[in-house]
């Protein structure tokens, strides 16, 4: 990472974009407090999060890129574990878990071990786990990876609703359509540096591009995309 600096505000979902290996997940680990930055600080309300990391984590909901879960637990058991680690009282927690699982269409699978879940179902468990304690800050790393179309559409609406509620939302994704439709602001990272940031309109105007896809290609794609695709086919047929 090299001098990465940006701000995420309430009421404005921030999209975090970048190609593979650009440093997105590393930044997110720093923002969530899982990884200490070697230099610089992550500030929340003007205060370094490391000064009260526990208090900061209590306000944080996080969906990691990889759905690492305890696969021998059932979905319901995993969510109860997360809720108890968040110090939520038992009865309301159990009601909330049941309600969330119903809304995410996981009700019938809640007592099946996570090892039997598909990738999308695991992703839904991660999203529910991040929302259980009604956090003020939400960080999503590739949140719709593996979700079916309905669940992805629900998630898109959910992001908008969370933003309206005044939550601070950072969403890292390769799905430019999701970022363009939901995010008010965008940060584009390349080789560990911020190459563009601001509202989506600002970024588009700055690069004179009609779409975010165009901006992204212009800033990040080092090679000609059409040529690369043609070269792949050529090599495949060789």
């Amino acid at each position, binding site marked *: 990472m090299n001098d990465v600096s940006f701000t995420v505000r309430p009421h404005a979902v921030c999209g975090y974009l970048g190609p593979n290996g650009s440093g997105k997940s590393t930044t997110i680990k720093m923002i969530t407090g899982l990884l200490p930055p070697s230099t610089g600080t992550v500030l929340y309300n003007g205060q370094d999060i490391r000064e009260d990391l526990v208090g900061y984590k209590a306000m944080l909901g996080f969906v990691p890129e990889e759905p690492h*879960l305890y696969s021998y637990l059932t979905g319901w058991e995993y969510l109860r574990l997360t*809720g108890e680690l968040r110090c939520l009282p*038992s009865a309301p927690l159990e009601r909330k878990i049941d309600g969330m699982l119903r809304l995410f269409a996981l009700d*019938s699978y809640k007592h099946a071990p996570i090892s039997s879940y598909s990738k999308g179902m695991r992703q839904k468990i991660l999203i529910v786990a991040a929302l259980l304690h009604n956090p003020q800050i939400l960080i999503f790393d590739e949140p719709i990876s593996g979700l079916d179309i309905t669940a992805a559409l629900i998630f898109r609406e959910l992001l908008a609703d969370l933003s309206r509620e005044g939550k601070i939302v950072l969403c890292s994704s390769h799905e430019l359509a999701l970022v363009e439709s939901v995010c008010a602001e965008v940060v584009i990272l390349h080789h560990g540096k911020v190459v563009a940031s601001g509202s989506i309109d600002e970024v588009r105007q700055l690069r004179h591009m009609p779409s975010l896809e165009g901006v992204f290609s212009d800033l990040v794609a080092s090679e000609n995309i059409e040529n690369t695709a043609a070269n792949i086919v050529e090599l495949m047929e060789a």
Partner: protein
Amino acid sequence: MHERHQFGKLARNFFTRFFESDLLAPEADYRATLSQALGLLATPGLFIPLLLMPLLMMNSDAARSWPIKLIFVFLSMLVMGVLSVLEWDALMLDRRDQAILMALPLRPRTIFAAKFWALAKFMAIFSVDVNAGSILLLPPLEMVDKRNAGLLALIRYGGAHAAGTICASAFIFLFVVAVQATLMNLLKPKWFRRISTGVQTLSILSLLAALFFFPAVMEQIPAWKATGSAIFRLFPPVWYVGLCEALQGTADAQFQASARTGLYALAAAGAWAVAAYAMAYGRYTRASLEIPAKAAGRPASVRRERRWGAGDLVGRLMPNPLERATFRFTWKTMRQSPKHRLILAAYVGTGLAIVLEEIVTLSFQGGEAWRQARQMALLSLPLVVSFFLLSGMRFVFNIPSELPANWVFQITERADRGAYLSGVRKCMSLVVVAPLAVVMLPVYALLMGPEIAIVHAAYCSLLSLIMIEALVWGLEKLPFTCSYAPGKLPVVALLCGYWLAFMAYTDFMVLIESRFLGSRVATLIALAMLGGLLWALTAYRKQPPAETTALVFHEEPDPVVRTLDLMA
């Protein structure tokens, strides 16, 4: 040619998959894991002849005697049996293999042949490895007083010993494969997966029990042979001792018959394994790709929890949600993670085997001295069980469970690790101390009267709680959430430590108990002292700054090879 190339690549891949087990060495290069496993498994076969060497050097008749061969055949079967049970999941193609291989243009027969070849290679390598020490060292000891016999005789002795021990290893391996494949044929895949861990656990328990009963068997077996007992004829290690003796030219009809039985048994196990494996293969591999059906209704564990009000009880005993979370996570991991359940079963099996062995041995003795010894042994039984259960739990806490999933603890972490570890202690108490006391009260009331039962239950419970304090003392991490590097402590020192702790916890404490049991005043004083010690330990632990620091999460495995880091 093309198919042969595919076969070679697949066979190699399947062979390396045997070493991906978390129990052996996670994240390690398979060659490093293979050499570590080979070295570890070859050690007993090498060590025992060296231990016996002074005795056997002086007495070649003893070296040639069949009971000595029985030790090595038994050892060979035991080690191979444990290894086969640990590799249970790798014996068939799993879901990951299937998902990858089915997308490739491979004939099912190529995959089957490669998998079977890998199994055969695994069996051959480890059979030779486990027995290599005794094959190399025992025959020269047998020939010490026959210096004129020549190299041919030495090779003949060595060959006979190798045939006996390797056939014994092969028999047990094929037997495990046959049992697994038969279960696959008989049961639906869902049920097979469910009972697999149970069968593994039971097998480990049986093998460990066999280990502890072996000295008693060794004492009795000459008599069984002399009387022509059926136990002698049906004891599998005897078959392969018979094979060894027959190949060395014995005229003993019993051993010749045993050798024939051993060969028939090996052929039968082989045929059974191949037939059952081939039948199960297609059925199981098809099923392994199907997503398991969703759970219909609540599973049994949830129903039990609701019916018995276990959730409410946990809530009342542990008002702090962090305690509840750690308690449930610890309990569920030990109960539902096959790997952890298997290791814990090995500890429990050792404890139960010691208990059974003591009961059986003392049951056959008479006289006043034996009556007293029996009473002491009887008093020590709950402590033996509690020692192995608690130390087993403490050991499995070190073994990670799905390490990358520990982020959930890191992201929700609180400053004080006291509440987390309190959940761990309560889990150990509720899983071990409480059930043990409940079982002890009626049993000892029946055997020794109600007063002794109450005192003994209180004494054992207090000792167990003190042991829990000692085991969790200084723990900085949550169970199952850190990487584990085996071999940090020398094995000999570790075993000596275990033995000393075991003797102090069981025999010494029972000796003290037997002194105060006659006097009510002395009993009250002893219990009060133990209670006071427990209270002092708890109070000291709760004092700041102890356990007010954050949890530790080690995530990187130790390197297989340590360097001096001279390049840094």
